[in-house]
């Protein structure tokens, strides 16, 4: 869907992005992460030509992005940012309708789409469609921001630290929402963050940037289990490594099927990290596990969390 081929960007004498090659496949949830100033935002904004690259090529859907008019290109890519940037003089409905209107959709189609999107991002359509942005909480505003970015069914959704300014509870809810939206829409998503837990939770692929170069790209599991350099290992956080490894596996993958145990059960789809938290807080050495249907599926033991690790 998006290919970077030896892309470079410089400001004056400083090279902000160097020889960056990366192929983002359709339907992928690609997370760009790295320390502040590593070139994440620059890389993201080069995709929709908010920033023009200096060297190399960037392809969108097989064609060089310079073969598109910038506005036409951007209308095919959703864009959501940390500061959200809702139009304060437009209602929620008008904000979400912005791109469909630019594309000349019919009124009826726009209206239906707004209703659908508000549902998708978890806002009641009748309550919120007529509101102005300043009457919404930060979390609600970003939900509208995401809905606006998705409105015209873009092939790609670009997000720059979209949840960076939200409180942890709201951020957690919106991350869950994003996973649902991604699963439901199949849109290719490129998201910038500096939060490793967010990257692990959301990304099907994580790209770690360091001074404008890719330090490592791979699935969360690859990156956690086989960090390519000391920089990556440091960046992942050596102290947090164990917990992060637990957060990429589910209880279902390590439980003992058929066994039974007493107590409040945990879902097989929960992360091992969640299981560890429950085990510690209950001072237990095992937890009953229920499947997707809610029926008992097995038991997870404290020892199962460490079995087979190097």
């Amino acid at each position, binding site marked *: 869907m998006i290919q970077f081929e030896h892309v470079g960007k410089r400001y004056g004498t400083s090279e902000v992005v160097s020889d960056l090659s990366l192929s983002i496949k359709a339907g992928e949830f690609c997370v760009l992460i790295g320390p502040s100033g590593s070139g994440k935002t620059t890389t993201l904004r080069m995709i929709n030509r908010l920033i023009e690259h200096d060297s190399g090529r960037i392809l969108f859907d097989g064609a060089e992005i310079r073969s598109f008019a910038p506005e036409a290109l*951007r209308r095919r890519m959703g864009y959501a940012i940390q500061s959200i940037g809702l139009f304060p003089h437009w209602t929620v409905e008008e904000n979400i309708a912005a791109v469909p209107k630019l594309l000349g959709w019919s009124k009826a189609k726009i209206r239906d789409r707004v209703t659908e999107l508000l549902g998708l991002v978890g806002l009641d359509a009748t309550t919120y469609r007529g509101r102005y942005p300043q009457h919404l909480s930060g979390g609600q505003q970003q939900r509208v921001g995401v809905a606006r970015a998705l409105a015209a069914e873009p092939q790609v959704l670009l997000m720059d630290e979209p949840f960076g300014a939200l409180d942890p509870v709201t951020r957690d809810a919106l991350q869950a929402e994003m996973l649902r939206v991604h699963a439901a829409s199949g849109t290719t998503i490129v998201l910038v963050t500096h939060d490793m837990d967010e990257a692990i939770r959301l990304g099907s692929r994580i790209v770690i940037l360091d001074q404008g170069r890719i330090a490592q790209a791979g699935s969360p599991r690859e990156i956690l289990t086989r960090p390519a350099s000391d920089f990556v290992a440091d960046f992942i956080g050596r102290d947090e490594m164990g917990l992060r490894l637990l957060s990429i596996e589910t209880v279902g993958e390590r439980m003992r099927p058929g066994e039974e145990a007493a107590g409040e059960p945990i879902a097989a789809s929960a992360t091992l990290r969640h299981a560890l938290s429950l085990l510690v807080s209950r001072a237990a050495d095992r937890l009953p596990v229920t499947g997707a249907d809610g029926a008992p599926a097995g038991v997870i033991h404290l020892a199962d969390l460490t079995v087979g690790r190097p």
Partner: protein
Amino acid sequence: MSGTMNAGARRGIGLLADPLILSGLVLAGLVFGMPLLKPVFAALFPGLDRPLYEQDSFLNLTIAHVVLVGASSAISLVIGVLAGVFVTRRAGREFRPLVETIVATGQTFPPVAVLAVAVPLLGFGAAPALIALAIYGLLPITEAVVAGIESVPVGVREAARGIGMSARGRLLHVELPLAAPVALAGVRTSVIINIGTAAIASTVGAKTLGLPIIVGLSGFNTAYVLQGALVVGALAVFTDLAFERLGRRLDRWKRDSA
């Protein structure tokens, strides 16, 4: 029956409690009803032979005054918006100090001086008055347009660009509507100042509400001065309140929840 009359009467009183309507009525009363006040002025100024300005009707003077202020403000507005938009574009950014200096210089000249300079060039009448007022009104309007456009949050600009709005679409649908409440404050200041300043324009032969004032001052007729000043004052108050009402309409989104 009496119930409906009470409701009607109450509605009438309610309208009078609206300062815009009340000031409009006072203005209309002064413009149309000045001859009716002749006995009042005669009683106030018993020493005057002619206690009422009758060389021209106050309606004509008011219309001429409003046309002069309206036309000059329209000129300031068009130039001010164009200049304000230009210096906030990427291409015009470097001209900003220059434009601001020119516009501020226009404001530094007292309007009387501009009038004095304009007369030898344009002769007596409405033309020098129009130009002097337009130059004088330019500063508050340009400043306010620039301030208004700059008040648009960076995130809003970035989002507008990022979702694919054209430069023109961003200006017309995002920047200008968001700048409008702030810009309007500048237009309001400019117009109100010019309603007062336009009165001075009668010294160069423009027909305005300043005429009775100037004739009265030169002929020691305090009643004329008072009559002109009353209408100018009522016009300024009414216009100011009308701008306030318009301003509330332009930023309704700041308050309305639905």
